[in-house]
């Protein structure tokens, strides 16, 4: 039986090769369909991985709340000395801790010190963040050299700092960074460690940014409060800002619903901040939204690929019906030589399946080629999984069998005498 199938397969290839151009044209639909399936699956897989990676950077158990300066017409609580007061307050954090204590592992705060940084007469354009040790852990910021800000630095209000790795490069600091001192608003800080350049995507950087500056100097939060307070006054005009906390990252305990905690926090903030001077980002929610968008994209692509495969299948059935008619006499001869109906049916079915499988292979090559050509250019990751190749080939064979069935049955039911008489 297997040998017979192999022989029929060999025969099919001969028949298809005899009409190579026609066979190739017949395959266009299948090629486009399978190519689309491969492309769609690879791009979707790449995009999903990219989304997951991006959201994982922010932490799926985290809720990020940033203070936001309201538009000037919204600043109703402007003080007579034109000090803008906005954003998260200690009261918000205390209420959040009290309401969600059972579900929140910790809340880490970042306070931006709006002071200038100087080193050896050179101004360094970076933001200064007052943070605690958990801030680094929460955002998975690693230490490249020295050590990171720790709890003892905070309780001791020590004048030490960490700097971004890139800051050293950008300002040409080639000496041992641990010996470097920075002047921040008139206070000298010793650099005790270098923070690994975080691999954040542009989108994540935007989410985590407390200002437009790209580089960061981290100092202990308590040191920041001691030296700078929460208010910054800009001279010569008496104006300034007062922000108690620029960013709060809430880490929800494993097993607790991040979305429930986010809703509870939002309720507190809505009451405390009628001007809505904060932004809340829930990475998990972000992931769900993007996955939903991804699903819509996938479904659309599957539909397009499906339509293409159906069109391809119709092309195949059309050509095979023509082929059956064209080869009526051959069918008669084969029947006269002893072929049973099933032999004739198998022959045409194998021919159709070989044809569509060939379309599947070419389509897979086109799809893979397309993925590696197009995806990098539009900034998508390309992942061609073996499963997608197997699926594509499976689909193309299934299309061949499905659409080849009717011509095969039609051929097998021909009366041998009529077939032999066919002109």
């Amino acid at each position, binding site marked *: 039986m297997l*040998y*017979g199938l192999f022989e029929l397969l060999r025969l099919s290839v001969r028949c298809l090769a005899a009409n190579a151009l026609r066979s190739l044209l017949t395959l266009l639909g299948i090629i486009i369909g399978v190519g689309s399936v491969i492309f769609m699956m690879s791009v979707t897989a790449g995009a999903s991985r990219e989304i997951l990676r991006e959201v994982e950077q922010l932490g799926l158990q985290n809720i990020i709340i940033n203070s936001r300066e309201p538009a000037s017409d919204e600043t109703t609580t402007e003080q007579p000395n034109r000090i803008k007061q906005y954003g998260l307050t200690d009261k918000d954090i205390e209420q959040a801790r009290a309401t969600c204590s059972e579900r929140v592992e910790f809340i880490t705060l970042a306070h931006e010190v709006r002071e200038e940084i100087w080193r050896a007469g050179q101004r360094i354009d970076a933001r200064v963040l007052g943070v605690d040790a958990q801030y680094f852990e929460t955002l998975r910021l690693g230490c490249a050299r020295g050590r990171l800000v720790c709890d003892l630095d905070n309780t001791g209000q020590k004048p030490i700092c960490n700097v971004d790795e890139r800051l050293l490069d950008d300002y040409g600091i080639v000496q041992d960074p641990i010996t470097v001192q920075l002047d921040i608003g008139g206070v000298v800080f010793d650099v005790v460690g270098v923070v690994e350049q975080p691999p954040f995507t542009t989108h994540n950087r935007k989410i985590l940014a407390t200002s437009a500056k790209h580089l960061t100097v981290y100092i202990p939060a308590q040191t920041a409060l001691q030296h700078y307070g929460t208010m910054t006054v800009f001279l010569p005009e008496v104006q300034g800002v007062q922000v108690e906390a620029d960013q709060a990252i809430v880490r929800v305990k494993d097993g607790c619903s991040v979305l429930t905690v986010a809703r509870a926090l939002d309720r507190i903030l809505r009451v405390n901040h009628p001007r809505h001077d904060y932004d809340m980002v829930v990475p998990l929610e972000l992931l769900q939204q993007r996955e939903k968008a991804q699903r819509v994209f996938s479904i659309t692509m599957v539909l397009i690929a499906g339509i293409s495969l159906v069109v391809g299948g119709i092309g195949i059935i059309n050509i095979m019906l023509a082929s059956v008619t064209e080869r009526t006499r051959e069918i008669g*001869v*084969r029947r006269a*030589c*002893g072929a*049973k109906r099933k032999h004739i049916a198998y022959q045409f079915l194998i021919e159709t399946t070989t044809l569509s499988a060939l379309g599947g292979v070419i389509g897979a090559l086109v799809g893979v080629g397309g993925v590696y050509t197009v995806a990098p250019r539009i900034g998508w990751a390309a992942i061609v999984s073996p499963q997608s190749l197997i699926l594509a080939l499976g689909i193309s064979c299934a299309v061949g069998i499905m659409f080849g069935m009717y011509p095969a049955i039609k051929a097998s039911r021909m009366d041998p005498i009529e077939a*032999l008489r066919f002109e």
Partner: protein
Amino acid sequence: MAPVMELKAVERTYRMGKVNLSALRGVSVTFEEGEMTAVVGSSGSGKSTMMHILGCLDRPTRGEYFLDGENVAHLEDDALSEIRNRKIGFIFQMFNLIPHLSIAENVELPLFYMGTRRRRRHDLSMQAIELVGLGQRWRHSPAELSGGERQRVAIARAIVHEPRVVLADEPTGNLDSKTGAEIIAVLHRLHDQGRTILTVTHDNNIASSLTRRIVMRDGLVENDSSESE
């Protein structure tokens, strides 16, 4: 010894719309092993219908057909295919070679459906091709052959599986007289080797050169030379 083929009161009726058309009206005839017979008759005499029944391509409406002692008149399609495959070789007026197969592959066809292995198929087909004098051309395609050569290939295909009977339907009908004569010579040679051959023909010259001659008319055997002797 039992005859190779025996028709007993065979009738074949076709339904053409509301009308029944009798192609054979009770034909009884026997063919012995090693005979070379010509079946002649005008168009519509029933000779082709008789050949189709003898070749197991068609079944009688009534009557019995014994092939090699087995009644095959009412067998199912698959069983008839098997009998055609093992016991019958066909030669057609239009040669009926498959254009995209080589000569050897065309000749191998009956063996293919017998399930013969490829190497054995090739050996047997080469022997048959040698027998019809085309040994050097087994790789060629039918399009590269003349009409006479194509018919030789068809003859090789008809005998490659050592059938009990070779049925030829107007084997020279599509050939000029010289080539036709060559083909008849090949058939005579096969007959001399002991094969049973039945030829349907319009050509009286061919018919008269064969040992037995059956004349058909209006679906009946009008004359059988073996009976009149």
